[in-house]
């Protein structure tokens, strides 16, 4: 049953499309991670649009749809985009973003004009540059010398580029890492930052060019940024980030291809949409940086503070009455229930008493509060009437280590002044 389901999902047609899509998005995700970390995300946008005239010229010169001349033309155009926008920013007194905007739109316009004016000899249309022709992948299969199965012809450049990307990134991993993190430090360590930058640009150009014949320039933009941004929300270190980004690329490819098949629409468009969905999902649900986890942590913290406050009030109430409660309304009810569930109160009622454990906790909290008050008073000469509030807030965050340090410092101080 399940086998059958998968079989229908990944028919041979779908499988070759999926293979191309997955390789393309993994290659983009790999180099995209470094672009995002170096705040160069928009370079992908610029390059993928700017390669158009290179493609067209390659086509016109060679007079055929053979890949190599078009790829060479496109790679030259891609490097031109990076070098020209860097030059305009550094030597033309033009804002970096605007410089990129000028360069790539100009090149794109040039490409379209070339395409239209050679319409009779050029069998290209702007649409295929924007969305690519991944749907045609299964129609043009080749067999590889050492493999049994036949693979789509358009997979070859993508696979080659993916392998090159992987090898280069592994080879210069250390340098890429330090240049992404702190270019100034890298320079002081004697690393040729400019060379590393150019190398990265070369990888990005190659990847863009190889991929967009299949998936189009739009998807290249999305795939350079989306998996990396998703990974950024999930990881704090570079190596996991690269791996997660590539995995996200795979997931996006699968969902995109299946979705496009299901809804009968364009594969690259669907992949970009899937990427958007995955990213939105991560923004909401990421365990460390997601909106929900942050909301949960904040609520839990507020609840803890509220219940500790209530506990201390109840404990203090034995000694003195009449002080107004700091925790009111729903928070108070929630706090009382929490305390009861944890076994720190005898019952979930307003009139409840702290249990044995609750009393112990309240004493510990009171000790911290006094410690902090003493610290503020001695160290900062804070007037007495200002003391209650900050002490009240900070005591919930003093862990035992910090409390010990404060108490040590205070003791030392008092020892100094008495001697």
């Amino acid at each position, binding site marked *: 049953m399940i086998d059958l389901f998968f079989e229908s999902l990944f028919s041979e047609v779908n499988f070759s499309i999926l293979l191309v899509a997955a390789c393309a998005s993994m290659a983009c995700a790999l180099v995209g991670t470094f672009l995002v970390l170096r705040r160069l995300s928009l370079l992908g946008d610029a390059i993928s649009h700017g390669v158009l005239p290179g493609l067209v010229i390659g086509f016109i010169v060679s007079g055929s749809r053979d890949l190599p001349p078009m790829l060479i033309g496109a790679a030259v155009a891609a490097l031109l985009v990076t070098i020209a926008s860097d030059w305009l920013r550094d030597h033309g*007194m033009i804002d970096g973003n605007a410089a990129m905007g000028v360069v790539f739109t100009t090149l794109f316009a040039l490409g379209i004009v070339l395409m239209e004016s050679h319409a009779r000899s050029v069998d290209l249309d702007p649409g295929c540059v924007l969305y690519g022709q991944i749907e045609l992948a299964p129609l043009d299969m080749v067999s590889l010398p050492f493999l049994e199965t036949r693979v789509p012809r358009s997979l070859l450049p993508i696979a080659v580029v993916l392998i090159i990307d992987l090898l280069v990134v592994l080879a210069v991993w250390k340098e890429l890492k330090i240049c992404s993190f702190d270019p100034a430090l890298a320079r002081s360590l004697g690393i040729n930052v400019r060379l590393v930058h150019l190398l990265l640009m070369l990888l990005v150009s190659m990847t863009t060019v190889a991929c967009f014949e299949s998936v189009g320039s739009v998807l290249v933009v999305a795939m350079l940024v989306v998996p990396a941004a998703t990974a950024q929300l999930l990881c704090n270190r570079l190596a996991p980030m690269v791996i997660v980004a590539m995995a996200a690329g795979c997931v996006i490819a699968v969902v995109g291809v299946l979705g496009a098949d299901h809804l009968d629409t364009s594969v690259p468009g669907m992949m970009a949409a899937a990427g958007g969905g995955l990213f939105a999902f991560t923004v909401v649900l990421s365990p460390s*940086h997601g909106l929900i*986890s*942050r909301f949960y*942590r*904040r609520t839990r*913290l507020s609840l803890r503070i509220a219940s500790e406050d209530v506990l201390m009030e109840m404990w203090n109430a034995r000694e003195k009455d009449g002080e107004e409660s700091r925790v009111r309304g729903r928070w108070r009810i929630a706090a009382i229930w929490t305390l009861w569930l944890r076994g720190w109160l005898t019952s979930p009622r307003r009139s409840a008493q702290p249990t044995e454990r609750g009393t112990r906790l309240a004493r510990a909290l009171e000790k911290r509060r006094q410690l902090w008050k003493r*610290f503020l008073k001695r*160290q*900062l*000469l*804070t007037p007495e009437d*200002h003391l209650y*509030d*900050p002490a009240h*807030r*900070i005591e*919930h*965050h*003093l*862990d035992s280590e*910090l409390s010990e*340090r*404060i108490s040590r*410092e205070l003791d030392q101080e008092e020892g100094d002044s008495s001697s």
Partner: protein
Amino acid sequence: MKSPAIEVHDLTVAYRAKPVLWDIDFSIPEGEMVGIVGPNGAGKSTLMKAILGLVPISSGWVQIRGEPISKDRSSTLGYVPQRESVDWDFPVTVLDVVLMGTYGRLGWFRRPRKAEREWAQDCLEGLGISDLASRQISELSGGQQQRVFLARALAQDSEIYLMDEPFAGVDAATEEAIVALLKKLRARGRTVMVIHHDLQTVENYFDRVLLINLRLVAAGPTREVFTRENLLFTYGGRLTVLDEAAEAVRLAHGNAGNLKRHPDAGS
């Protein structure tokens, strides 16, 4: 009784749950020159921005001449931001920048006219840079940029001036010009509050100092407050505990966007 120029009561400012100022409490009488002194990251700029209403206040309040800060504070408050806060390659001339000081009085849609231009020119004169009026601002040196900002504040003609490090990175001549201007403002009964870094000159420049390091360490007339002991408290390492406590609060509240810079780090 006359209300003080600036009164700050129990002010706490938190940036993303990390408190950067705790329970600041002071008041400043009118017509005084006040220096705010403290180490880097002590929250001096944040305090100034809180008084101006540019950053949200977690608790406490600020009153300007006995009234809470309102949206329309142009006639009472003059502000000199840090020099690095703007793009000095922006396409405006020196006179344009100084004229911005009159925009608040002009209100919506009205354009600066001859009277405003002459007034702006006078303000430039007051800082000794009237010959620079038609210069593009990218052609200015650092000291000249600072003078332009001060001329703009002068053009605001406010009762109270708040200046964020006007002496940072300026040459001796500019420093003299600024001090002369400040004295002139005080002679006219204006209140001036200045964030200051150079401890050597504090006693010469200011009537009153606020020593700040996350908390208000001391506030009062310079002679009484600017003492070795207070400075040790302000700059001493003991406050690391306070900083760590603030960090603990921040971590507990989750640290999304932790790559964003601290507002006090200057931008």
